[in-house]
């Protein structure tokens, strides 16, 4: 009997939860809804737990200043745990609640939603996720990378290496990468550039989860002895690579990492900023706290009588969250302005996103220009290097080998 009662209670609780949830969320007149997918609990939680608060804080800042042209923004954040089926559920939820746009999170999730976004005509942003080919707005009309793709990052890495070494002819470059689709993506660009610039390229794959790369590093430092290393790793792997390279005596000033191996947390986990002196990182959003927008967020917290959140100290990922939010807000602003203050549709917000131009937020955002054909905005990056215990900007916004990237995009488009 007691067993039965307890089991019945369980069933009742589940039913009640469902019934209760059915009547949630409704849009008010002067409020717009943004959907944000995030991963605060899955394998990429170290990124999500810092990036998503950045997004939320910027939206809160905009709302505290009266919203966008009088419209308040409500963020509907859904944790997809870096799994694909919950990402689809999240998208449908955003659609049901009338979200004007959504921030995607995760490469396989972006791949799985590309088609759905197009069918439902809701724009989704995928900075640092998804395929480089999504920069082509004709092929992927509703997917917006809005930041340098892996191809653009690879081009930038080679250009940086060229500058550092004063030419590439006859040099040896090692490409250390995570053995998954995202890790392999830059290969076509690197191989192309190796031919064009006359340097030697050798690849070193690190199998998932990338915590053990002694063999690869020994191969690089002991046998191949490259003039430069381009690293493209995820998760815990970047810090392992820094530690191993340092341990084998390879100068970190000859290493450049693409965007997911470039956060303070990666460097600190490798043994601290002091140890990683000279390590170069590629960034698609501003780094550090020296931006008016971040000062505003701090002031907002101060006005509420709260300390600034500790996530702000992890500036690389936090700033990327702010960066994504800022572009979302700017797209909305453009759309509302174009409509003379009326509530825009998601189609109009897409047009708003495609007309972003000259929006730099005090050097925080690159001088990108989005259009209906270029959803990447030009593939701008900065290089930040560890110097004296912190990340220092050594190269301002630039586009690495833009013509080569465009050639690849055209070639890829003609293939499909």
């Amino acid at each position, binding site marked *: 009997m007691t067993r039965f009662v307890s089991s019945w209670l*369980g069933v009742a609780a589940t039913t009640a939860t469902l019934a209760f949830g059915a009547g949630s969320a409704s849009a008010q007149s002067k409020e717009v809804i943004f959907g944000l997918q995030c991963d*605060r609990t899955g394998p990429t939680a170290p990124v999500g737990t810092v990036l998503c608060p950045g997004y*939320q804080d910027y939206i809160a800042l905009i709302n505290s200043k009266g919203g966008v042209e009088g419209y308040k923004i409500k963020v509907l954040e859904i944790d997809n745990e870096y799994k694909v089926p919950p990402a689809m559920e999240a998208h449908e*939820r955003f*659609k049901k609640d009338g979200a004007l746009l959504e921030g995607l999170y995760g*490469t396989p999730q972006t791949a799985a939603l590309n088609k*759905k976004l197009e069918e439902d005509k809701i724009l989704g942003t995928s900075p640092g996720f998804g395929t480089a080919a999504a920069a082509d707005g004709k092929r992927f009309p509703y997917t917006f990378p809005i930041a340098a793709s892996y191809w653009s990052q690879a081009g930038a890495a080679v250009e940086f290496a060229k500058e550092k070494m004063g030419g590439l002819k006859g040099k040896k470059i090692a490409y250390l990468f995570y053995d998954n689709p995202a890790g392999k993506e830059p*290969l076509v660009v690197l191989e192309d550039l190796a031919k064009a610039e006359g340097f030697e390229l050798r690849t070193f794959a690190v199998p998932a989860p990338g915590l053990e790369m002694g063999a690869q590093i020994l191969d690089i430092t002991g046998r191949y002895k490259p003039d430069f290393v381009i690293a493209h790793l995820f998760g815990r792997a970047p810090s392992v690579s820094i530690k191993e390279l340092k341990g084998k005596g390879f100068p970190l000033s000859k290493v450049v990492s693409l965007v997911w191996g470039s956060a303070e947390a990666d460097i600190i986990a490798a043994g601290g900023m002091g140890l990683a002196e000279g390590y170069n990182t590629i960034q698609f959003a501003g780094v550090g706290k020296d931006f008016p927008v971040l000062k505003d967020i701090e002031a907002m917290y101060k006005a509420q009588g709260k300390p600034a959140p500790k996530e702000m100290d992890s500036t690389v990922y936090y700033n990327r969250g702010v960066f994504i939010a800022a572009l979302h807000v700017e797209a909305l602003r453009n759309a509302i302005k174009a409509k003379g203050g009326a509530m825009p549709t998601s189609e109009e917000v897409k047009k708003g996103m495609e007309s972003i131009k000259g929006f730099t937020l005090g050097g925080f955002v690159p001088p990108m220009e989005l259009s209906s054909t270029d959803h990447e905005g030009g593939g701008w990056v900065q290089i930040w290097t560890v110097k004296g215990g912190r990340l220092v900007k050594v190269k301002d916004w630039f586009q690495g080998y833009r013509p080569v990237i465009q050639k690849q995009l055209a070639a890829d488009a003609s293939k499909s």
Partner: protein
Amino acid sequence: MFHRESGVFKTTYAADMALYPLPIAKWTMIVLAVLFVLIIPLAVHEYYLSILNLIFIAIVGALGLNILVGYTGQISIGHGAFMSVGAYTAANLAVKLGLPFWITLPAGGLMAALIGVIVGMPSLRIKGLYLAIATLAGQLIIEWTINRVPAISGGAQASIEVDRPSLFGFSFSTQGHLYFFLLFFAALAIVATLNLVRSRIGRAFVAVRDQDIAAEIIGINIYRYKLLAFAVSSFYAGVCGVLYTYYFGIANYEQFQLVVSIDYLAMIIIGGLGSVLGSILGAIFVTLLPIAIRIFMEDVGALFFSQAEMANVISGLRLGVFGALIIFFLIVEPEGLNRLWRNVRSYFRVWPFSY
């Protein structure tokens, strides 16, 4: 399913094996069919249909895994990899040869069954944890192969886009259309499994699970039936992978990694090993519970937290509550939700005259 006589009155094997133990069961089925085919798709918002769609796909996969783990007693943690085999087979056939779904879907299942038999071969010599490790190896080898062979994966991104499934020129493109597409296959999988487990094959599976030496002595060829279990189970997994592929419009091996195999194992353990209804309940539970917890907390949490704080609270709490509920249900009934449901029914069997 819902109804029972107030005692055990079966006197023949045929009566014990019947698909519909009582005439009223047939009517229950008809009511359920009307509910799912006519009422739900018309009455429910597309968002809820999308959740049902995910559940339908999960049901197919969970049924397959339950045939292997629950009925035959062979542990497998390579279920996700078999899904990817089905997914890439179907995607390649659909894109390279332009074949329709009614060919690619069984083809994906058959290819997965073939690979499943190969991965299942160690089961002839080892069991239990050893077999788990052997199937884990299968999972990793398949992942590696797909990642490394462009002929299968279709290039560096290892993803192949497919068009929406279409039948006689009608394209299943919205969640509402896909609902019928997936409902059909989920229903087919349920009916097929119900029939499989009450047949000679199903009983042979159970015999192998309960005591393989005894099964061999009474004349069951255990090699044959173990491999058959792997084949059938992988066929379901392959079909499940194909359904995912058509549902998302893309085959991508990152959707089918080890964690997916673990998720499906969780489904059948929570639902109940060795039961069809358990697979269904488990698939519903694992898919729906995180969503239900989130929706519940969005409403309740809004009373206590600000918008930005809530995102963090929900993510963390949801995981905690989800885990706690799994533990709770397994303590209340270690044999899963299916057993829980049966307990409820047996309580009502002679209600209100129980003693």
